[in-house]
């Protein structure tokens, strides 16, 4: 028994961390924030070359056949860097097809997703707070779907959509086939823009094992968001740590005031232990499926709550500059708010986790 990363995993995380180094990514993310680019295509291309989109895809379909553990390690680095790439939706569409697709469906969709030739996403929720498969009402009729989906990550650029249906079924819609129109509302997190999608008779291919895959995909979403939150929490913590050692007031560095030092210590104490949580959620997803729902729900709820709390605290530590558009802190603050809400608010997930116990 051991609970450490092996050499391959360490190397994988190290490599993606170098691709996502702050001095490379921050200007690109800034260009997106300032509306100069819709999303960060340059970084996405580098990540595809690195193999990000192939990690969990089985080898027979052009992937590397690795587990959610490896993907979550990458999600941590993406969360740290705040790269404006369509990772979340793409990863979840891929996982949904791996978990629920027939052999033939996997062979049809996975190679394009693994190679990055296609961008995938997931269209799940309809009303507000409808993240559970039991909440979905969209119904396929004669092999086509109509209606509206919300909160689709990078929905306006996705070419392949995994759509949530009544009874927890899942189906694949190829956007090129027509009948899908995005409607954009100004999103809070500009690095992961979500939109609504209107389906009007779009052709849909029902996955062979939708209901099982829907729950697995939800658990994977929670795990990846939890990894993102852990990475993001550390990044904004480090920003605040650096700032308080430079900024002066009353003739001293902010860090020399014990109130500031203690606030920073409280942040770290909340953040660092959540790594164990997301690691275990990823491990459970890959190796102990019967514990995955419990672990993923707790991990996402706790880690996102911590991220939101520390992002606010660290923004506050920057004083007025932290409240400006020009300063980068709000990029992580808004990602924290996204992580809090997407996939289900913490209170709902804690209750979901409790249902998995003998209480």
């Amino acid at each position, binding site marked *: 028994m051991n609970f450490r990363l092996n050499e391959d995993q360490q190397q994988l995380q190290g490599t993606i961390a170098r691709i996502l180094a702050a001095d490379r990514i921050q200007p690109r993310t800034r260009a997106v924030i300032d509306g100069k680019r819709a999303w960060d295509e340059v970084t996405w291309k580098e990540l595809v070359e690195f193999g990000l989109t192939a990690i969990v895809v089985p080898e027979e379909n052009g992937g590397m056949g690795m587990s959610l553990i490896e993907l979550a390690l990458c999600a941590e680095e993406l969360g740290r860097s705040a790269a404006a790439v369509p990772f979340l939706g793409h990863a979840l569409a891929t996982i949904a097809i791996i978990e629920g697709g027939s052999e033939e469906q996997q062979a049809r969709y996975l190679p394009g997703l693994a190679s990055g030739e296609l961008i995938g996403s997931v269209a799940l929720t309809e009303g507000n707070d409808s993240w559970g498969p039991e909440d979905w009402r969209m119904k396929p009729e004669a092999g086509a779907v109509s209606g509206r989906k919300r909160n689709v990550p990078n929905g306006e650029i996705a070419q392949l959509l995994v759509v949530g249906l009544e009874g927890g079924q899942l189906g694949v819609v190829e956007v090129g086939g027509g009948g899908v129109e995005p409607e954009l509302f100004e999103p809070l997190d500009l690095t992961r823009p979500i939109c609504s999608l209107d389906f009007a008779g779009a052709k849909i291919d029902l996955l062979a094992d939708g209901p099982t895959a829907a729950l697995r995909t939800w658990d994977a979403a929670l795990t990846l968001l939890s990894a993102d939150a852990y990475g993001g929490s550390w990044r904004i913590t480090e920003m605040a740590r650096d700032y308080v050692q430079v900024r002066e007031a009353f003739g001293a560095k902010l860090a020399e005031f014990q109130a500031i030092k203690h606030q*920073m210590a409280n942040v770290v104490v909340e953040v*660092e232990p959540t790594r164990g949580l997301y690691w275990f959620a990823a491990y459970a997803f890959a190796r102990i499926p019967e514990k995955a729902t419990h672990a993923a729900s707790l991990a996402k709820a706790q880690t996102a709550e911590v991220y939101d709390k520390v992002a606010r605290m660290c923004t506050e530590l920057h004083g007025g500059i932290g409240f400006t558009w020009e300063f980068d802190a709000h990029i992580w603050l808004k990602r924290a708010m996204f992580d809090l809400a997407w996939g289900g608010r913490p209170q709902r997930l804690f209750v979901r*986790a409790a249902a998995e116990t003998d*209480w």
Partner: protein
Amino acid sequence: MDLSYSQENEDYRAKLQAFLKENWPLPESIGDLEARKEEFRRRATEAGYMMRSIPKEYGGSEQPLDFLKGEIIREEIKRHGAPTEVVHIGTGRVVPVLLEYGTPEQKAYWIPPTVRGEFMWCQGYSEPNAGSDLASLKTRAELVGDKWIINGQKIWSSGAHKYPYMVALIRTEPEDVAPRHKGISYFLLDLRQPGVEIRPIKQISGEPEFNEVFFTDAEAPLDAIVGDRGNGWNVSRMLLRYERAAFSGINWADSLIQRAVRTARSTMRNGRPAIEDPVVRADLARLQARAMAMRYSAYRDMSMEAVGEPSGDYMMLQKLYLTEFLLKLDDITRDLLSDDLMMLRPGDGADGLKGNAKWVDASLQSLKIRIAGGSSNIQRNIIGERVLGLPRDQVGVNARKNQEAAQ
């Protein structure tokens, strides 16, 4: 990552189960319950299930470090209802220090009876004017002939009224030695002598657990110091490391959640058990997330340490994280207790829920944990400085030092 039990571990578990079946409960012919527990622990040590980190020559079972086996032992002993390993100051702190710093004579004299539970220990660190700022302690030992003569006062010594031995930090070098902690030595003392007066202090929980200990020309032999003279600060810091690494905190957290669940089952809210209330369920799940974070962070830390990889700063944070866990647990149980919170010993039936007295006590004890072993604010200083690299406080002695340096 691999959290599964190997076949070797499963065999180990089966062997342990057989041992437990054979050795507990023991026949009454062995003696009263205490005697039977003692005999069980002796056998368990002999079989390699207790005192695992202590060499055989000193009465331990000298087993290689294996946190998974440690977990299996704790699990099975608990499931079987057998007596658990006694962890007290002696085995938890004095013995590790002796193993690291003691002379062969000191080890042979002190460790075996401590392991057997014959030598019981209290701790003499804090003084009335040296708590969080321990380095300002003033109790002194002077070398007179071949004896140390000790004068001063210790406080908050748990168990000093019933345990004969004290591990103490005492100043042996001149006061003007800088830095201040350089003049302190690590002593093992016998409290049963005329120069020692012990006065119990009643705690807020009503128990007389703490004591003041006064030294008036008390005596200690030359070899009462462990490690070099004046090196007591470093010796005692090794203890803090042991204390923070205490893995038992995690199992304790899990068992507290289980107990809180039981209380929520038997507590009625609006005619229904409180455990059915979604708010209560979510609050308990929040606690579980924190317990899980502690467990897997510790697993990670230990797995990395085992192969010599730097594991980062988690262990430095754990005490504060556990303290916050207890605070949040308190929030939940105090709400469940409702009126029973106003009684140090709630009654029974209409006069209170059986078992709630424990929670009232726990509510007070959780405050003690915030203070003992490095108060939470001191922990925050340490984390700020060592984990984040923030500057040291420039007040008091640190500020004076800086002023002197500037002159």
